[in-house]
């Protein structure tokens, strides 16, 4: 089986006219695990996903971790909370250790700043950290692709809230130019993971980056927006399961 997948990946790599590694930011898609109705996410699924990556010759490289923090406004009158952003999110990404990202999802604003902005927010005392989620796991190299598979856990807990997967294509920074090859990769991935008969699937819902003023050329701001949207989708998914139970 692994010989077949090697051949397919070699075809993808040789097909790609942009094979030279991009000197700018390679693009990525962030997927989240959507459990089937009636099932929940668990560590066994995470193990199966990791094994699937290794079965298609993904070479384990090391650990990765991203953190997403929900900030809440400190208000003198809680009755006026509707005047303030519903979701104010801060994100740290492993590929940008000196940067921090803020996203206001409903205002469609994304900001990239030095990580010292967190100290400024602490000094302002107008917004405080409410909940933080860690996205962490292992990363794998597959030819011109880099995969990261990770669990989603609250920062002070080991309760598994979700599973995410990043698929990064190293040679290209253009979202438009990369569409076909990313879809071809995902078809291969789906074929591999489906054989494990897991109760769910990975989903990618691409945000409208232009709403945030982001261009076709991929940046870490795009990644920050993806993580914001994935988190809201994960939360909705968890709430749907809880509603179903009730």
């Amino acid at each position, binding site marked *: 089986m692994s010989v077949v997948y090697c051949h397919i990946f070699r075809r993808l790599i040789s097909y790609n006219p942009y094979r030279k590694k991009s000197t700018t930011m390679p693009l990525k898609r962030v997927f989240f695990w959507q459990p089937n109705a009636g099932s929940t996410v668990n560590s066994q699924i995470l193990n199966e996903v990791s094994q699937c990556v290794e079965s298609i010759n993904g070479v384990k490289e090391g650990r990765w971790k991203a953190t997403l923090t929900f900030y809440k406004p400190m208000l003198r009158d809680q009755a006026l909370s509707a*005047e303030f952003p519903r979701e104010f999110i801060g994100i740290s990404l492993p590929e940008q250790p000196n940067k921090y990202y803020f996203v206001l999802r409903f205002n469609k604003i994304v900001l990239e*700043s030095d990580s010292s902005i967190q100290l400024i927010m602490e000094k302002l*005392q*107008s917004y405080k950290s409410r909940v933080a989620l860690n996205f962490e796991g292992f990363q794998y190299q597959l030819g011109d692709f880099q995969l990261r598979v990770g669990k989603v856990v609250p920062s002070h807990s080991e309760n598994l809230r979700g599973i995410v997967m990043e698929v990064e294509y190293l040679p290209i920074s253009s979202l438009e130019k990369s569409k076909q090859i990313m879809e071809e990769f995902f078809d291969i991935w789906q074929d591999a993971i489906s054989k494990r008969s897991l109760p769910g699937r990975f989903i990618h819902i691409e945000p409208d980056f232009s709403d945030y003023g982001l261009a076709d050329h991929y940046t870490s701001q795009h990644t920050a927006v993806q993580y914001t949207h994935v988190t809201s989708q994960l939360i909705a998914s968890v709430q749907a399961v809880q509603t179903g139970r009730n």
Partner: protein
Amino acid sequence: MCCSRNYRDTDLQYVEALEILLQGLCGVNKERLRVHEICLKSGPNLGFVASEVRLLCDLEQSEPTWTVKHVGGALRGAGAEQISVLVRSMVESKASKNVLRLFYALGYKLDHELLRVGITFHFQRGAQITVTVSSVNKMLKLHATDEAVPVTPGIQLVEVTAPATSENYNEVVAAVSSFCEYLAPLLHLSKPGVSTGVVPTAAAAAASLMSDGGGTTL
């Protein structure tokens, strides 16, 4: 933290002489300064105490760059009064161009805005020192930097600042104070908020500097 002293000049001739003096003392070329400073304050309901943040847009670059700046309280107490330099906490962060939209969306309001235009020197002399000579201008229309007018015509602000940590601020204070002594024949710098007058030797010092381009030792 940052340590600073400043001075208000009243004569454009002194500014040119100061520029010559600084060029000689700093050993580096001057850089042009054109910074749009937007001061934001938290809205009435936001935060249990009011907060203020400054957004600095460097207009001198081909592509304007933004910095978020928080200036905290000054060092206090008997010890602080003995220090000839103002020591206060400061945090800066570079940010992308959406920063003003972000802070407006978070509930911050425009308090005032300024345009600083002038020159600046960055050099190492016991500490990483920055000297800025600038006019402070106000905008007659919102964000209209092309239509700014001086707040106090003919008056320039001279600032000498240096970053410090809580461990080394005494050394930095000494470096800033020592550097300011070199400017003494031309101007006297003091802590922000303490007004100074023109030093008696200013006219002679300025004339000397202007006559031979700074070759004369003051």
